[in-house]
């Protein structure tokens, strides 16, 4: 008798016994594995929760996600199984993202300051009052000079509305946060091969060199790339070697952790290049075909960078450098990844460039398992579009940093104080500069408290962060779960477009950013007579998305925005296989990426009317479109000459070394025996400044003792938990010690995301107070058991600007550490504006216009000096 409840599994089992082929290959039998996601049920009632596809935006990795809604509330977030990069999975931060929306301390109506700045006294006002006041201030500023209106964002995923807003007003004073993030990495890469980031093919590689990236905890692109690292390591037996000053989770996961003295990764990479070229292990064909130098030039240039030289600088034994270099060159495919380790130093751009030379000289570019170009997608902007402002802004493009294509925003307070540019109205959006920037309150707090320098500070924010607390007016913005936004991120080898869509109506009186910006413009130009309103002609966020997405070729045929509303992402490359966690096509095989993007051939139509010069450069209508190599017309790389620019001539114009090089940080060379270098880092469950109010993340990590090696601790007479005083040239702090074998003896390290003095009751551990701005209290906060909120280090970190990339040298701070004295209390911090200002003056000396620039570049003796270059202006950036 056949059981009427026969399942597919039983059926397969029965057929297994009768099929010889299947018996010989049992792995071919596919069991009915449980599905990997896409649905969720309430554990108590067992009812299905409503699923809405979104794009995560706790950090900027931009994972495709699903919000599960029950009783009108998002109760669960998970990865979107149809998303090719995310493959259904989210990190700890992404899993906790609903707490941005339901934070009891969220600001749910417009607020106007009534006390002095930062005093914490607020008055609830209506939207109409708020908009009228802001429009009035803008009106006055416009009469003087549109550039006196400034907007600085920390994170901008609006898809262009912030730029549209500023361009509508005619202001070029648009600033970002990239110089405190990874900008020198970007600037190291862009002139070399075009884009500002790489996509290492971790899943298919055999060898990974990781210089200072903590990809398994943070960095671009944590979740999607971590998935591929685990896959490569176990399924593909790859080896991963990490150079870092500290045993991050990435270093701890790696086959080898090689501690390196801060800022010297570039020297190690150059020495590896020396070994590869000396031993003739390079890919000569690739170098000679695809770069602007020859193997002989390169070998000659690399002769100076011996492993013995690098050992003296970095502390990495020459033998280790020789061994790793040979392993890397002789294992194929191999790839490389970097992040803030090499980049966040005075000469971070050089370090980045030196690192990326390794996959270039071994020909691992754009190969399966190699070092690939990013894959992204764009979308059109709604018409009509406002034109670019007439005049550039010195703050946006300081002339001392012409190569810093991602700006030098962390120097803004000093430039404003020096009177370089006048500000009347300052907008801040998803930023928190007094927390996230070097100098912290000693610099940015001082700037914001000065009403002469910043007469009017508008914060568009959902939370009372350190910066918003200093505002004159707060326009309650929506967290990401309530916004419409277009999205694309090169976070895997497959390009995609996605959207964020609101999972429920805005809470309280909050408004999503594009709508509140529109409302400001409508208030400023109610009848359209000022020519501003026409750029803001949309009903709501969804209407705006239609203008982006309904005409993208391919997506249009699939249904445009309606497709994205249903699936969250386009295209959908395949189905998630529950047995492997990989995306498979209709035949059940894993989808394969396209490689060799630079070797895509130009079509006859492309070539019609094109001109090929002696070097093979193909130009058409005045622009370079490709490169002829071995008789074929390729698209090449997106640089001016369509090649990889190992030699960056533009750098030489400003007296910088065009060839890969390394510069020691002068003040690291003269360090005294008792001095250490302080570095900062991110933990897996936090981002820089906006996760302290997320309870599940705060529970896992809420304090940030300073890491130190047992050798260091022994000298200081310190054990874990003891109070120590960490003092730099600009200030000091008192915190607890964490003694661990996982750190270089000359380094102390403090994670950021802790020690908030604003950001709500949970971040500041003031839970006896009540929610102030319209939020509903969360009964679970009565279970908060930790009573240590940590100590934020930024106030003792001076500004350092990479003269090329403009990046903040977070990892360059020299400190003295001592056991705390009798008057030191846990959490004491102090920083001096005067000393921070001195540090600013000092770092400007390294700019191409500064007096130390020539001294640092003896190899550029023939350079004609700053007067020899006509300043060409900045590059924009984002």
């Amino acid at each position: 008798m056949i059981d009427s409840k026969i399942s597919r599994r039983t059926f397969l089992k029965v057929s297994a016994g009768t099929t010889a082929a299947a018996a010989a290959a049992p792995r071919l039998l596919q069991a009915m594995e449980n599905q990997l996601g896409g649905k969720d049920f309430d554990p108590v009632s067992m009812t299905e929760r409503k699923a809405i596809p979104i794009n995560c935006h706790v950090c900027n990795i931009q994972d495709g996600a699903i919000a599960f809604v029950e009783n009108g509330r998002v109760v669960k977030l998970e990865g979107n199984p149809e998303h090719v990069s995310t493959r259904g999975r989210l990190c700890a931060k992404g899993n906790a993202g609903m707490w941005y929306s339901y934070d009891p301390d969220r600001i749910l109506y417009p607020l106007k300051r009534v006390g002095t700045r930062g005093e914490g006294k607020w008055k609830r006002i209506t939207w109409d009052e708020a908009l009228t006041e802001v429009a009035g201030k803008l009106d006055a500023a416009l009469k003087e000079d549109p550039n006196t209106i400034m907007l600085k964002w920390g994170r901008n995923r609006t898809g262009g509305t912030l730029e549209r807003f500023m361009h509508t007003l005619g202001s070029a004073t648009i600033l970002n946060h990239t110089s405190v993030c990874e900008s020198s990495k970007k600037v190291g890469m862009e002139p070399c091969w075009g884009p500002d980031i790489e996509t290492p093919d971790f899943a298919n590689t055999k060898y990974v060199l990781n210089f200072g990236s903590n990809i398994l905890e943070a960095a671009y692109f944590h979740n999607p790339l971590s998935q591929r690292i685990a896959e490569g390591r176990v399924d593909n037996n790859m080896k991963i070697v990490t150079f870092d000053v500290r045993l991050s989770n990435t270093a701890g996961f790696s086959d080898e952790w090689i501690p390196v003295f801060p800022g010297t990764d570039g020297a190690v990479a150059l020495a590896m290049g020396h070994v590869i070229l000396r031993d003739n292990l390079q890919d000569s064909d690739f170098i000679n075909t695809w770069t602007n130098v020859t193997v002989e030039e390169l070998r000659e240039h690399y002769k100076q960078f011996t492993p013995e030289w690098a050992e003296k600088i970095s502390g990495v034994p020459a033998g280790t450098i020789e061994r790793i270099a040979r392993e890397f060159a002789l294992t194929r495919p191999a790839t490389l990844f970097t992040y803030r380790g090499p980049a966040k130093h005075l000469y971070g751009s050089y370090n980045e460039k030196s690192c990326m030379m390794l996959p270039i000289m071994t020909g691992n570019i754009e190969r399966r398992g190699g070092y690939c170009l990013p894959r992204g997608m764009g979308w059109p902007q709604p018409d009509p579009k406002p034109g670019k402002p007439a005049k550039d802004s010195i703050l946006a493009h300081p002339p001392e940093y012409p190569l810093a294509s991602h700006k030098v925003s962390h120097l803004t307070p000093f430039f404003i104080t020096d009177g370089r540019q006048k500000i009347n109205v300052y907008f801040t959006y998803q930023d928190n500069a007094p927390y996230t920037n070097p100098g912290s309150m000693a610099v940015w707090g001082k700037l914001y408290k000065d009403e002469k320098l910043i007469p009017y500070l508008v914060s568009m924010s959902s939370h009372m962060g350190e910066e918003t607390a200093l505002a004159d007016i707060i326009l309650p913005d929506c967290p990401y779960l309530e916004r419409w936004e277009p999205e694309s991120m090169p976070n895997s080898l497959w390009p995609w477009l996605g959207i964020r869509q609101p999972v429920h109506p805005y809470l309280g009186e909050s408004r999503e950013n594009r709508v509140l910006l529109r409302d400001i413009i409508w208030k400023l130009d109610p009848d359209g007579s000022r020519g501003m309103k026409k750029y803001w002609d949309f009903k709501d966020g969804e209407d705006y998305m239609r203008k982006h997405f309904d005409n993208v070729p391919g997506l249009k045929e699939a249904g445009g925005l309606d497709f994205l509303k249903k699936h969250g992402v386009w295209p959908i490359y395949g189905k998630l296989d529950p047995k492997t966690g990989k995306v498979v096509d209709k035949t059940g095989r894993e989808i394969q990426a396209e490689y060799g993007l630079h070797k895509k051939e130009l079509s006859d139509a492309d070539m019609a009317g094109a001109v090929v010069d002696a070097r093979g450069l193909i130009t058409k209508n005045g622009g370079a479109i490709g490169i002829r190599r071995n008789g074929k017309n390729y698209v090449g790389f997106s640089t001016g000459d369509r090649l990889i620019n190992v030699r960056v001539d533009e750098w030489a114009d400003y007296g910088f070394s065009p060839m890969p090089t390394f510069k020691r940080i002068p003040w690291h060379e003269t360090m005294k025996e008792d001095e250490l270098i302080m570095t900062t880092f991110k933990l897996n469950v936090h981002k820089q400044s906006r996760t302290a109010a997320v309870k599940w993340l705060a529970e896992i990590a809420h304090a940030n003792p300073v890491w130190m090696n047992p050798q260091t601790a022994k000298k200081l007479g310190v054990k874990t938990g003891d109070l120590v005083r960490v003092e730099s040239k600009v200030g000091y702090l008192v915190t607890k010690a964490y003694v661990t074998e996982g750190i270089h003896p000359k380094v102390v390290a403090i994670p950021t995301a802790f020690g908030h003095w604003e950001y709500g009751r949970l971040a500041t551990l003031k839970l006896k107070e009540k929610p102030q701005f319209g939020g509903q209290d969360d009964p679970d906060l009565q279970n908060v058991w930790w009573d240590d909120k940590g100590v934020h280090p930024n106030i003792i970190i001076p500004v350092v600007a990479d003269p090329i990339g403009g990046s903040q040298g977070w990892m360059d701070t020299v400190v003295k550490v001592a056991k705390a004295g009798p008057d030191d209390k846990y959490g004491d911090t102090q920083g001096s504006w005067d000393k921070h200002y001195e540090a600013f003056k000092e770092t400007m000396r390294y700019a191409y216009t500064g007096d130390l620039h020539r001294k640092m570049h003896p190899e550029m003796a023939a350079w004609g000096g700053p007067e020899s270059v006509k300043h060409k202006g900045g590059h924009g950036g984002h």
Partner: protein
Amino acid sequence: MSEELRLSSIETRGVQGKKRYAMVIDTRRCIGCMACQVACKAEYDTPLGVNRTWVPYKVVGTYPNVKKHFLPRLCNHCDDPPCVRACPVDATYKVDDGGFVLQRYERCIGCRACMASCPYNARFMLPSHRTYTKINNVVDKCTFCFHRVTQGLVPACVQTCIGRSRVFGDLNDPNSEVSYLVTRNATQVLRPEQGTKPQVFYIGADRNQTEYGRDLYFRPDVMEEDRAAWSRNLKI
């Protein structure tokens, strides 16, 4: 003897026609990202201070020869669960089809006998306050996501596992991924000497974490400080 208790003494592994769900945790793939722990918190509205799953770590070695090991933890859904034997009111029981060890909140009297009997510290008392779920002051634990698994999904922690370190499935099905992994790799279980027959299998688990002590993992001094704060401040 109650029906549940009788059932619980029956092994579910290797029983024809029944499912035996198990989890394989491949520590070679665990990146210690904590996504599992947070996904679990969300799935169950688990209050602060307690966890159904958690990820301790250990740093071993001496500079510069240092390594970090993670060991994701949860209820082992034992085939011979001491908690079921310890419960005086049959609030905790074992489901024979699937092997889930579950808790019936309406029967639980909060005596904590099950918590004391569990060699894995996998059970906890729910505090009085939660965000939206109205189950408090009884013992709770990992359910292997019974509500998801019985509707064709993997548990929430497996769903979000970035490294695909956690794999879930039916051990009684020889063709499942878990059967394959358990067969083809050297696996470990926690505290085998207790005779509990755990159904969470580890690949590559570090001896330092599996061998010693009731907590099964080393707590660095900074975590001790947290533990003291937890004991001092959490009211349950």
